[in-house]
């Protein structure tokens, strides 16, 4: 039982990352209809910005604030300068965002080298309860992911900016007719979605060593979460992200072997899409 509880805690903590990545992707797509294939590299950029800040002497908690904001700002700049004009051309945005991901990866290699890095933090202790080890870094992941995602869901459902996002997601033309600034609203979606990737990156960088090359793995998991959750549906992304982390962990521990870790994720995705091609929940920005 102790082993099972340990696996569950480990699975929940990795779910937190999948949720942050998937929610960011689904929010951006839901509002803008742009699938950002550079999103995984945004996550890695977040880890490296966090690493650079901490290496320069900033406390880790400050990196946890600044790195997501920096990545969020990059998302807004890229939307306003590039994505906005190509939003209706899916092939062009595909090529553009894939290319951007490669460029960001190579820039990271150029600046920080291909070597592995890790964000230094004092979160190396753990608490043992009934034989289950709760490490500080994993507790931090859950402790940040839960309020951030809860706050986002509340914001989408109850705030003016959330209403504007939902209106833009539903019909940008109609939204603009009733006074919603679609460009500004989409910029906010890019700010939040990209910042969530940056936040996931810093949290990962505190828990695991990282290199410039890990972005695609998280992009694919994020896409799986966004698609299976019903693209644009934040609650759906949360449910599927949570399930994905647990399925991966239980599958690795009790399934045919940990080498199938990615396989479990895609079996889950295929099963969900075969059952409900539109995803578990309805699409467009929903909470």
């Amino acid at each position: 039982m102790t082993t099972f509880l340990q696996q569950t805690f480990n699975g929940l903590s990795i779910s937190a990352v999948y949720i942050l990545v998937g929610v960011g992707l689904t929010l951006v797509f839901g509002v803008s209809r742009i699938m950002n294939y550079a999103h995984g590299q945004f996550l890695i950029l977040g880890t490296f910005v966090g690493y650079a800040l901490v290496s320069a002497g900033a406390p880790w908690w400050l990196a946890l604030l600044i790195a997501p904001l920096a990545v969020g700002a990059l998302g807004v700049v890229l939307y306003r300068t590039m994505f906005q004009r190509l939003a209706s051309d899916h092939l062009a945005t595909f090529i553009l965002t894939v290319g951007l991901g490669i460029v960001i990866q190579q820039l990271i290699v150029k600046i920080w080298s291909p070597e592995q890095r890790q964000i230094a933090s004092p979160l190396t202790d753990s608490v043992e309860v009934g034989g289950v080890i709760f490490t500080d870094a994993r507790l931090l992941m859950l402790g940040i992911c839960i309020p951030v995602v809860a706050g986002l869901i509340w914001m989408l459902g109850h705030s003016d900016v959330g209403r504007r996002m939902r209106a833009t997601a539903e019909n940008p033309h109609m939204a603009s007719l009733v006074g919603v600034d679609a460009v500004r609203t989409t910029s906010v979606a890019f700010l939040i979605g990209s910042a969530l990737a940056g936040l996931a990156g810093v949290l990962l960088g505190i828990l695991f060593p990282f290199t410039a090359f890990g972005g695609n793995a998280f992009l694919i998991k994020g896409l799986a979460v966004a698609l299976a959750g019903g693209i644009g549906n934040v609650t759906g992304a949360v449910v599927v992200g949570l399930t994905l982390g647990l399925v991966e962990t239980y599958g690795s521990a009790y399934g045919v072997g940990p080498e199938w870790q990615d396989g479990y994720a895609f079996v889950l995705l295929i099963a969900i899409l075969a059952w409900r091609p539109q995803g578990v929940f309805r699409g467009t920005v929903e909470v």
Partner: protein
Amino acid sequence: MIGRSGIVCALLAAGLAACGGGDEGSGSEKGTVTFGADTQLSGNLQVYGAPAVQGLEAAAADLNAAGGIKVGDKTYKALVAAEDNGSDPSAVGKAARAVVDDGSIAALGPDISAPVAYSTWKQSGVITFTPAFDLQATLLEEADANPLLFSPVPFLTSLFVTSMKQTAAEFPDIKTVAIIAPNDDEGQGASAAYAAASQEVGIEVVGQELFAGNATDFSPILTSLKKKSPDLIIALQSPEHAVAILQQAAQLGVGKYGLNDVMTPDQVLEAQGLEDITFIIPNFNPTYSPSATIPDYSPEVIFGDEEPAGNPGAAVALYYSYYVLAQAMQEAGTATDAEAIAKALPGQSYDGPFGTCTMTEARDLQCETLLDVVQGDKVTVYRFPNPSSVDPSAVYECRGGTCKAR
């Protein structure tokens, strides 16, 4: 003013120069020798490929500074033609073809999809230096059928046995081991070889797990292994995987010892959360780590003033590989006949900045080896005279980059 005959002469001269731009030089005229590489200069495996090419380029620069490669009465300029496969198995074949088009007489093979590159080079008569586990097996089993195949490092299967013997001799309290490796050809091969090596020295293998290549969270594996109480965790392949595995092992209280054969003491000292683990690093040839520099070595010859990037042992291995190739050319009296050069390669020794390395009759390059042990901020380096030795010729205690013989 240049007349018509002058223009004709100039065109003829240019044409002759273009025709002779590949290999044979004559008299005082210089030709070129090209050591190619189909390797990982970008992507997630560039930590192996980039330093290997750094070693080749350092050797070429030193050979040229000494007047070039002299073969008979001809002198050749040493060149390196490195083709990047981007750590992408599907790009290996194209890079291998480019190495042939570069006019390479010898080439370093990739760490991934090595047989693909080798089949191209075998057909084209390119002497192949392979670091890959599967091609080393081919060399061991079918040496006569592969006369142009060489290894720039000692054969890994026998090295693993020696490494485990060295480890068991130094740490007799290690009774059980768990091996965690990536799920690819190299990982599976190395895992099986380490398991066999462990059993050969009487260490019980209590777990052998493979993981997906892009994994970062190893806690499911480690939580399952915890019940089996391994003393030693062998975390194979890339440094980022090894650090992640052993950090998480330390957090979950799994294993007192960790082993990885491609990391450097610097990487272990820089990583957080490994302070309570005794980290064992077998090195299959001499290497350089600023935190544990052996006093006899001259790392600046290869690395200059820069901190080594990636796996510095790869740079040392390829530096020596170029030198023994040059010597084989001199002995064979040709810079273009690959078969003659390959025949002359076994037995070539070069005494360089990291001691003496010899290409053996079995066609693996052997030098002295090192076993680094990192405990807290202390690094102990065991120096062995050859890859099969279990008795160290010297032991050094290193702190803050300074090593003193024990």
